[in-house]
């Protein structure tokens, strides 16, 4: 079984860490909102072929899923960098 050590340390997020999270959240929120509104109000537009011969609806949906993962990885990487910087200081 893979178990973590139960020793907890103080790893409260720094202000820059929190700001980054909120910024990435807003970025995704804008993309998601635009995508949902396009599906509701611009059905003819999202039917158009955009990239690689796939329409906007499919490309946008796949893009949103991939974007979520990329933002998550970026966030985690930045948080580790912030923590490393804090430790050095």
């Amino acid at each position, binding site marked *: 079984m893979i*178990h*973590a050590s139960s020793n907890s*340390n103080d790893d409260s997020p720094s202000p820059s860490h929190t700001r980054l999270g909120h910024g990435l959240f807003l970025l995704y929120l804008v993309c998601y909102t635009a995508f949902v509104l396009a599906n509701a109000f611009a059905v003819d537009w999202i*039917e158009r072929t955009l990239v690689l011969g796939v329409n906007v609806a499919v490309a946008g*949906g796949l893009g949103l899923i991939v974007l*979520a*993962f990329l933002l998550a990885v970026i966030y985690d990487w930045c948080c580790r960098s912030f923590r490393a910087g804090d430790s050095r200081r």
Partner: protein
Amino acid sequence: MIYEPSILAIVVFAVFVAITLGLSFYLGAQSRSSHGYFAAGGGIHWFVNGVAFAGDYLSAASFLGICGMIAFYGYDGFLYSIGYLAGWIVALFVIAEPVKRLGRYTFADALDSRFNSRGIKLSAAISTLAVSIFYLIPQMVGAGALVKPLFGFPHWAGVVIVGAVVVFIVVTAGMVSTTYVQFIKGSLLVIFSAFLTVLILNRGLHVNGRYHGQTQTVTVQPDGQRIVNGLPQGRGEGQGDLWPVGHVSRLPGGATETGPLGPIEFLRTIQNSEIVLWSSKTAKNADGSTTTTFVQKPTSGSEILRPGNSPTFRGVRSDQFWDKLNFLSLMLALFCGTASLPHILIRYYTVKDQTAARKSTVVGIGSIGFFYILTLFLGLGAMTSGALDVTNSNMAAPLLARSFGELPFAIVSAIAFTTVLGTVSGLIVAASGAVAHDLTANLFAANLNDHEKVRVGKIAAVAVGVIAIVLGILFEKMNVNFLVGWAFSVAASANLPALVMLLFWKGTTKQGITAAITVGMISSLAWILLSGDTYRDVYGWDPATALVPFSQPGIVTIPLGFVVLILVSLLTRSRAGSPTRSVSEG
């Protein structure tokens, strides 16, 4: 369609159950304290927890419901995938770390972290129970719906088997065994979905010339006898059955087959092909029987890969603003619902710190996102597999697997069934934690020691399991996706405003939180019960007479929760005293 029960599927499922039960016995020793029982002692590795998120979250609705919806209607099912995954962004960037920092067993701990309020604990516990039970019903109904075609047992047997196994898993080792059940299930689901996708792409697409006929009919007589295409349903002499459907009628450039395709090439080819979908119409006959007629509907790929083909999302092509609002409301509930689901939130207490909570969410997003991308290929693969049952979209994924042979069918069927185990066990742990930790101490003013809390939790797990079994049998005819939508709307309306405002508004008071949870829960439930969908599907009434203008409550009841919290907090602020800072500031 009549399905042959698969002995192989039963064997694969039995092996999985045996492994999970053995694991529960083995891990039981680690769950004697309440922190061990309800939160696995905070000792789960972040990677295991991340995959367990997938096992917890990817329920029967995700696997069977979305695949079936894509197979029957195309792109509309994929919209669910996008919405379900987007909700994890709220969880990662807004909720995960503060919830981990502020709580210990349940999300009520986090809400109550600076108030020590009986009202908050009570309302959060009731909301947890309401959401968990709403979420449990479709899982149990899904188990019953699967067990008949796959194993040959009646509906109630499937519900009882799942209920009994899950209660055993939860009672023996609580969150520890639940986590490992979800880890195994999540891994198997993602790996075999990827394997199936490879098989689909390798097979490519081909024009199927097998035209059995333009229509199929199913008549259900008052005595329950089914007449299929003019013959009593059966496999014997003088009997008939529905034929499998789902074929490509035209490929680009007049080709008859494509050979193996890459993922993007597969989507592009579908978009430029013509595929035969089926529409259905049900009519009541003079003798009391009902006849459902299924008619072929050749549909262009570009039409399939745009929104609005399914009854759920037809509103996006309507000129009526209310119809579009229904779609927007559902997408809002999916976005806000994930980070408000109690069985997801308690998983943050199974890891050691906030860093592990964040890392496990990243792993969860990776595995869940990968799975949701695969649903598009699984659904479209099923749509063109020639193996679909025109009467049952939930069977699309297992029948797709059967088109590749009995072994993939057995494995996918067993995984589909165990999918229910993972989600149900998480829900029962969340509900039992709410009862033992929040409800008993506050409603009955009982001061329980550690050992007693675990005992109450185990009793609550058995009680919730029995309730879930009974409701799973009673709600047999209800649509699984419809019920999951209820759970997301209630969770988002009741819990999200309280969580977000606690974290980001210094003026939040305990009365504000209690009022927001109560109003959000009651208003969303009331809206659902007064909606057109419920009128039609539950009461059997004319949906046009429904009291609310559209069926999905989120776009009204989520903002309502925020407004109530702000108003009540402003009104009670002077009495409560102003907090000095919001909890998101650490």
